[in-house]
């Protein structure tokens, strides 16, 4: 492997490691929810 190729491989490896590091240090969580809306002129309505 030529020096330039080796440097490119090392740079790519470092970038991948950094991306992995950044990825593992971000946390996320999601909860879905909905809505039910009865637009009516009557006083009461059932869902």
């Amino acid at each position, binding site marked *: 492997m030529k020096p330039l190729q080796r440097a490119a491989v090392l740079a790519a490896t470092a970038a991948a490691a950094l991306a992995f590091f950044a990825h593992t240090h971000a946390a996320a*969580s999601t909860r879905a929810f909905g809505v039910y809306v009865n637009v009516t002129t009557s006083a009461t309505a059932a869902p």
Partner: protein
Amino acid sequence: MKPLQRAAFHALLAAAFGTFIAEDNAAAATNAKGFGVSVNVTTAATVILSGTRFTWNAIRPSTTSYVKADNSPMTITGLIRTSRAGGAGNIVVMSPGNITGTNKVNDQLGISNFALTCSGSLNTGTQPSYAAAYTKLKPNASVPCASWGAGSTSKLNFNFALYLQTQNNPTDVYKSNGFSIIATAT
């Protein structure tokens, strides 16, 4: 030395030798190795909503002010922990597109008719900065609810209220399960 004296002497020697062996064994069995601990406390973001659907069982076609959902507010619990080095935590609400009526396809309920208010001081740890009261939801986009800065740790317990203001909306039943509340921490 008389036999009795000799026996006593031998017994004394044996006892002394036994003590020496015991002490030597005790010293050999005592050994210490130091050790340490390494604890990497990483960022965390978990969010739990106390319900799954906000309901307005009977809302007029035109309201002059925001009407809170019948089962509003819900409670948000969970955990936010951010990095000390430039970290941040956010809870946002993602909305679907405008909602089509279940009776008539042409009936539409605009997402921007909804508004949220996130509030409360029962969180443990770092208190968040809440979005302004009655922050309007946006179709196919997210709006803020609460945020934290770097180095925050907060066990969540706050209110998430959803409001609706109708503006000459056609009478119909509108349903959607396409909303989500999203927590992130870096």
